[in-house]
């Protein structure tokens, strides 16, 4: 009987430990949303959308009373809309400027690091460019692939609109603020850029490194290929943080969502989607 008593005590102790371990899930995991209801409006940078989508699906799947709407529009739109109170979280693929932070009273939360890479169609033989060649192509000074060793076809340049954080980072760091030809065709998001370049064998464009997949081919810039490793190590210079901005210090459902992104679970999603986690 002594043996049984000991076994029972040990068993009880073991069960108590398991119970404690199970119930103390990571403080910012999916369970913190329990009991919440309402709508969370998110908009802005399109590079953030894949991660936002998965995070939102996890939250909405576990808690059907919560509705999360995600829109694009670009970093500029995200900052403006959150500043005006049209959305609770405004994503931006560039750090909000001091003027913007002051004007809207923004709080910034960075949850990933990303790069902006130049991409072409996978069948394009051109695989490497120097900064100067890149600037010439986007300005329209080089307009045929044969000047770079490719086929004798005109280069179609794709670019983003003024609101895009991806564009402003690319323009500042890769193009050194050089001109972009007015003949460049416009696409409205990173996803649209990928689709456009993947469909057109003579295209060149730029997009978030996290979006790069086998349907497009990254171009090495001054010898450095834009991918997860080079962005992480800092070797690839054209990089930026992915921010979620709120008006004032974040509260409520938005706070829980941003904490979820910064939690181990959220950071795993970030890594899976091809970005560099901050934790």
């Amino acid at each position, binding site marked *: 009987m002594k043996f049984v008593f000991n076994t029972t005590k040990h068993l009880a102790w073991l069960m108590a430990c398991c119970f404690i371990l199970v119930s103390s899930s990571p403080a910012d995991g999916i369970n913190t949303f329990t009991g919440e209801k309402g*709508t969370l*409006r998110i*908009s802005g940078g399109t590079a953030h*959308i894949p991660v*936002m*989508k998965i995070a*939102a*699906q996890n939250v*909405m*799947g576990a808690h*059907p009373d919560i*509705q*999360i*709407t*995600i*829109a*694009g529009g670009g970093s500029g739109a995200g900052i403006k809309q959150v500043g*005006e*109170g*049209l*959305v609770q979280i405004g994503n931006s693929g560039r750090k909000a400027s001091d003027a913007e932070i002051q004007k809207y009273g923004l709080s910034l939360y960075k949850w990933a690091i990303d790069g902006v890479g130049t991409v072409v169609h996978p069948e394009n033989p051109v695989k490497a460019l120097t900064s100067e060649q890149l600037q010439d192509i986007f300005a329209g000074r080089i307009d045929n692939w044969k000047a770079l060793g490719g086929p004798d076809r005109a280069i179609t340049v794709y670019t983003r609109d003024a609101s895009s954080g991806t564009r402003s980072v690319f323009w500042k760091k890769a193009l050194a603020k050089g001109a972009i030809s007015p003949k460049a065709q416009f*696409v*409205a*998001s*990173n*996803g*649209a850029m*990928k*689709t456009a370049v993947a469909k057109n064998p003579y295209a060149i464009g730029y997009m978030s490194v996290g979006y790069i997949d086998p*349907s497009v081919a990254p171009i090495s810039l001054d010898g450095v290929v834009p991918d997860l490793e080079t962005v992480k190590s800092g070797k690839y210079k054209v990089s930026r943080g992915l921010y979620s901005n709120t008006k004032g210090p974040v509260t409520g459902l938005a706070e829980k969502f941003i904490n979820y992104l910064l939690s181990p679970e959220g950071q795993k999603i970030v890594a899976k989607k091809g970005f560099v986690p901050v934790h």
Partner: protein
Amino acid sequence: MKNRSAGDILLNTYAWCCALILTSAVLIIAGYLVFHGFSTLNLDLIFAHTPVLEALLLKKQVFGGLLPAIAGTLALIFLSISFALPVGIAAGVFLAEFALPGTRKILGLMFDIMASIPSIVVGLSGFAVTIFLHQHFFKQLYPCLLISALCLAFLVVPYIIRSTQIALESLPSQARLTAPGLGATRAQNLWYVLIPMAAKDIVGGVILAIGRSAEDTAVIMLTGAVATAGIPGSVFSGYEALPFFIYYTAAEYADAAELMKGYGAALILLFICGGLYAFAYWIKKKVR
């Protein structure tokens, strides 16, 4: 006995060529769409991984399926027609029954313009009004289902006005004389005699309006449609819609599976609009 000359042969050849060009263009497009999209038409397209019953009872959200977009489009149609129908019929009745000739001319012109305004201008106005109200009066107001429905109502009201007016004007004169001859007022005559008689023709205009609400993209792009929203929780929230999904997929599909969903969505929207058109055609045939 008809004479035939070289001119006839030329004219007929030209006519046949044009008819064949147009017909083959339509067949190529329809064929391409059906060919690529038919294989995707199954419950998976709409419900993805969520069990059908739970999705329909709103117990679980659908991710990766078209149900939210279809629900959004249906909600839009319902709301916009609820706004447009009473207003459209009232205005049409006024034009046909009570307006003086001068008024009729002015109003007719205004409604012609209303029917021709580009939908993006309507969307931009709706968006601008929303921002204006948001900044000055209602901090809680954003582009949402309600705003989109109101803008769509503005877009389709002219169809209903026009068909009501034409329907009432083509009623035989006995309809206006019989009941009043027995003591009914004009209003009673209108409500109990004229409108029921004209109902079938009015319905034609209403169905046209429904079709327009279902397919319009420019208005909803600017007033509340987003790429990801789930089933709309209230009229003040963002929502998804079929035509927006199709546009968005064409611009940025992440992989072949998403592209296939785009084809499926295009087919579904085509079926909805085609079905509405066939229904209107059937009703018109019944009138004869």
